[in-house]
């Protein structure tokens, strides 16, 4: 009975949301978006500060942002402040998880002794996954991906190692340091930009030719830092979740 009432309520609500959204002619229908009505059009031509008519892969150089991946250019350049906030969200969540679960002592996996295949396999596969992750965030400005998936991959590699190696927990504190280091450096880069050019998180390096690996100014650096930070934060979250209560 309750379910039906809720379904009816949500049905009515959904109807109004649909009609509220789609009866508005200014809300362009799915697929019919005209970028000229949006701020994104300047992101495509990279002409927020410099006027560019056209940007060509492998040819245009020294643009306001050198990333071939538009999403990356937004994430790390145009809206890099959001990204800083995003990293902070992850940071604070991992901190919260640590505050809640960090006091627990036991380890979830301690009962199941990892078998030989897992141990060896984990050790062999760890560098591969980690390298892929690093590749992803270093190439964030060229290919899909970037700091977050890259960092997550590192985290999953660490997770694997953690599951396989019982003595690995002792080394976890270094991740905290890495997290702290990466986060601080991210902010310091921003402050450096502020000091040199008057804008926080300014892209103070030359951007080079679009499509080159070392072309996007601070983007690769920031993405490496983001990747490291995200990786260590996610590692922290997961290891905390793998703890269990021990009876005192």
């Amino acid at each position, binding site marked *: 009975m309750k379910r039906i009432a*809720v379904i009816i*309520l*949500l049905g*009515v*609500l959904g109807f*109004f*949301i649909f*009609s*509220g959204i789609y*009866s508005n002619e200014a809300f362009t229908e799915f697929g019919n978006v005209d970028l000229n009505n949006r701020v994104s059009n300047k992101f495509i031509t990279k002409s927020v500060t410099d006027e560019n008519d056209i940007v060509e892969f492998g040819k245009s150089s020294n643009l306001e942002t050198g990333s071939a991946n538009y999403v990356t250019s937004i994430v790390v350049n145009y809206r890099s402040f959001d990204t800083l906030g995003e990293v902070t969200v992850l940071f604070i969540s991992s901190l919260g998880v640590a505050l809640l679960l960090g006091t627990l002592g036991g380890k979830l996996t301690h009962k199941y002794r990892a078998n030989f295949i897992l141990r060896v396999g984990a050790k062999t596969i760890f560098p591969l996954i980690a390298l892929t992750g690093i590749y992803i965030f270093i190439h964030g400005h060229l290919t899909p991906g970037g700091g977050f998936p890259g960092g997550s991959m590192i985290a999953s590699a660490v997770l694997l190692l953690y599951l396989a190696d019982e003595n690995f927990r002792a080394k976890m504190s270094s991740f905290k340091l890495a997290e702290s280091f990466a986060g601080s450096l991210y902010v310091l880069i921003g402050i450096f930009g502020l000091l040199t050019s008057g804008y926080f998180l300014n892209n103070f390096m030359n951007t080079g030719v679009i499509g080159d690996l070392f072309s996007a100014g601070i983007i690769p650096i920031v993405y490496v830092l983001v990747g490291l930070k995200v990786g260590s934060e996610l590692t922290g979250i997961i290891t905390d979740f793998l703890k269990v209560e021990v009876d005192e």
Partner: protein
Amino acid sequence: MDFNALILFMVFSAVLSYLVSKSNIKLGAYSTILFSLISLIILFLGRNNIGNEFSLLYMNFRVTAIGWYFSLIMILIYSMTAFFNPYWMEKILYPSSYNFLYLFSLAATVGLFFAADLITLFIFWEVVVWSSTFIVPLGKSRKAAVVYFTISSIGSMATLFAIMFVYSKSGTFDINEAFKFLASEPLTATFVFFTFITAGLTKIGIFPFHIWLPLAHGNAPHTFSPVLSGGLVKMGAFIAYLSVGILPAYKAFSTSMTIMGIPFQIYLLMVLGAISIVVGTLMAIKQDDVKKLIAYSSVANGGYILIGILMMDQVTFAGSLMHIFNHAIASAAAFLTIAAIAHRTKTTKISELGGMIHKMPVSYVVYLISIISLAGIPPMGGFVSKWLIVQGLASKGLIFIAFAAFFGSIGSFLYVFRPLAGLFLGQLAPKYENIKPSTLVMKIPMVILASMSVFFGIFPKYLLETIGEIQTSIGIDPIMINGDTITTINGVLNTNKVAAIFGFGFVISLMIFLVLPKSRKVGLMDTYTSAEFIYTPELYHYANSFYAPFERLYKNHPSVEKFLGKFAVKTEELGILVNSLFFSHKPSVTVLWVMAIATLIFLGGVDI
């Protein structure tokens, strides 16, 4: 001396008194006497300040004749009551704060009466309310303070609404200017009139706002009840005066329906005043606690005052202004005698006391005088003023109101007699055999106030001349007084003759009392029934359920207290409902609300 300095002096004297009290409590209490007396003298001598304007911070003041008159009464009551403060310092929980708030509220009342703009008026009004609110719970009841504050804030918020409304229309806060536009807008004027006067009604204790008086007056510290009853209640009269005198009520209502020549808006309030007289009198008769009894008599007297002020004419208004003074001193004196008794006996219940005349003769005389004045019996001041009010009403043919006033006078005999017989006369309870009479310092203010009651009863001209000047200053005909003969349309009152007649009667009865043989005194415990000794003689004391047969007549009367109590309970239930409806540990409850509200709002706002 400039009144600018007077107000500053009063504020600083409050602070100074606090500091003195911190080092020596007794000294602090004496400082309240000193400071209030100094203020009284400054004010009394500074009558030539009338008409002056001055300002402090963002507050503007204007000394008017009526404001001066009200302030004088207020400081008089405060300074007289202050004589009792030293004796209560050990008994009060926060003596220094008490002294501070005592003088501070006094300063605020004076500021109120001299306010030149409505904001200043409101500021001081609220300051008086909150500073006195914190004194009340030091006495016997915590609830009293809450009820007092709540009812006061009902009034003050209504008044604030009126003030803001007037400002939004006229663009000024100046008391004399702000209301002017209402003269030509009867409908708006009706609204403003009723909202503005509400604060006054709550303060005077007009039905149905009267319930705070017995609670607060009856339970406040004994040294503060006189101030509450004699002093602060009169602030309400001042607001009532502003509502008809400054707010052009009669002019604005000139086109509206009239009852007996009075615009129905004003007549309605007069009816409320009449109801207060009846209710106050009936309830006063019932009370066993003397302080509550006097508090209810204040309700009744508040009715007289309101009616008189609302008339805004030659006779009734003058009577009302005079009654403000008479009631202030009489009720303060009555409360002071109770305080003096309570100082020795620790109780104010009539049924627990008796025979106090033997122990405290001065208190007895003072009480007798003041309660006679309160009841409006000649030859005290209260009689003159009530006579004026009734005269004024009768001359206008306001039969119902006059009847209520008459009823109040009759009823007042009943409630005057009860404490007189129960408290002072009769047998002394054995446990009070050894109590001492009240101290000299306590006697001073009692005697002063009582003699003022007598004096102005016999020579009202000194008061009425001042009142006449006030009446002239606000543009109505002054009361006609020639020597000690007051002339109204319907009659003439020569107070000297009245006093002489009563004096003669008094002498005769005194002689009879002295000549006739004395009756035998029976101790309170000396009671037998069917030859058996009674172990609970208190219950058989005649002061216990004094008017039982009469009270039975209106035992199950409807009561505003009960109604408001129910209202408070309902509010609490509503609060619990709010709590259980919206606040749960389950997110689904809130999410459901969100979705339901969103649906409702989209239903109204989305074009389909």
